[in-house]
């Protein structure tokens, strides 16, 4: 690790880890685009499969966009720990004395920056394709901004559990989708309420509560999962 940060400070370790992971991710820039392309392709499949009727697309837009976000997140989750697991770096982290929870949090933060944030930024385009009414666009972006970190947080627990498996990625979706159900329900309810001109703040409040809860609890569970997988 970078000598500037070896003073043992928690924030130093956190920053160093995020910096390192972002550098690694940017070295393989083309791989960063895969979730983005996946998102675009999946969304465009819906009009192709269902028909281009604008009213129909508008009705299903919140759900479709959010489901595509879920799928894209799960696909990119496996990369969260895998390369570090495979070359032994993860074990070094465990031995290093830095709390594994912090390391998990740092990796989750990187994952969101690399996989979740693009979803948020891409959402206006997806909303346009799905003919989502303009007044609910801001609500969609907010739900994604609040929700995609939760997806990364909860997903990291699943990744921690399956990291030692060769085909962990396949099992990961089964493990993680039931846990994503509440987020999907609340986020899409918010956007649909906004489309109908109904109040939606209570849903956003629930998402904020979910985010706070996940940030505090999920890293511990992910660290525990990693400890089990590495044992």
């Amino acid at each position: 690790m970078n000598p500037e940060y070896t003073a043992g400070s928690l924030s130093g370790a956190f920053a160093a880890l995020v910096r390192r992971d972002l550098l690694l991710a940017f070295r393989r820039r083309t791989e960063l685009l895969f979730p983005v392309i996946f998102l675009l392709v999946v969304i465009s499949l819906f009009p192709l499969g269902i028909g281009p009727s604008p009213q129909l697309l508008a009705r299903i837009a919140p759900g479709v966009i959010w489901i595509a976000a879920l799928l894209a997140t799960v696909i990119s989750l496996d990369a969260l720990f895998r390369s570090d697991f495979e070359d032994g770096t993860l074990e070094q982290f465990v031995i290093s004395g830095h709390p594994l929870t912090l390391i998990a949090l740092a990796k989750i933060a990187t994952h969101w920056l690399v996989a979740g944030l693009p979803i948020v930024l891409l959402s206006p385009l997806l909303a346009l394709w799905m003919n989502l009414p303009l007044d609910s666009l801001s609500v969609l972006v907010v739900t994604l901004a609040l929700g995609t970190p939760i997806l990364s947080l909860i997903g990291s627990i699943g990744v921690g559990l399956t990291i030692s498996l060769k085909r962990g990625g396949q099992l990961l979706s089964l493990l993680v989708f039931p846990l994503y159900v509440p987020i999907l329900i609340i986020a899409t309810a918010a956007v649909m309420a906004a489309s109908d001109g109904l109040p939606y703040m209570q849903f956003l409040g629930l998402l904020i509560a979910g985010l706070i809860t996940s940030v505090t609890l999920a890293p511990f569970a992910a660290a525990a999962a990693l400890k089990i997988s590495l044992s």
Partner: protein
Amino acid sequence: MNTQIGIKDKPRKNALVMFIHKLGSPPWFYDFSGKLIPWCWLIFGVLTVWGLYLGLVKAPADYLQGESFRIMYIHVPSAWMSMLIYTSMAVMGFIALVWRIRIMEVLAMSSAPVGAAFTLIALATGSLWGRPTWGTYWVWDARLTSELVLLFLYLGVMGLYSAIDEPRKAARAACLLALVGAVNLPIIHYSVKWWNTLHQGSSISLTGGSNIDPSMLWPLLIMAIAVKFYYAANLLTRARVRLLEQDLRKGWVQNVVREQKP
């Protein structure tokens, strides 16, 4: 097992604590559960016959639903068990993770298939109940949707457990997953329930929501208790087999087989 040393040190130890210590020893657990299992089956059998007789033969047909309400006597207890077993699996998993007690790992993992079975029954019978009641085999009502998500949670635990090679590591991973699922379960339940009212306006209930007549209630309660004995019997059977498989080469297992009548 080393538990015997601790017991000799403190002769005045509480009988309950001693009992719990003994349960941690596989050969003792194997013997003890072997004696319990036949009784559990017996009670299950008696209660089931009695409950089904009251429910299927004696209870009069419902005014609104006709005969189809009788499916309730297998649907509702199964649904209740599916949730009870998940909770018990999560509790056992918690104990297994925190105190690293192997027998708890075995019991938790043995609970999963039983819970999944009950969830499957709840889904199938709920679907079959829905057809005469609402006209379709599947409806995304709160209960069926929750049961479906619960089935996925069970399959996840079972899948993770079977995917990892080393048995104790696999059990610990699956127990952690069960715990995470248990924490999420109330959230999932409420969000699905609320999603259902959100998208349908009126709430539809299989039991009609009205006050349930005592002649209908008794068989339900009897069946609800009966399935608990099924769970106990099946759980202990599965746990015993799992212990045999895991301790294949140990002395106590070979003694058990030697003492078996051929």
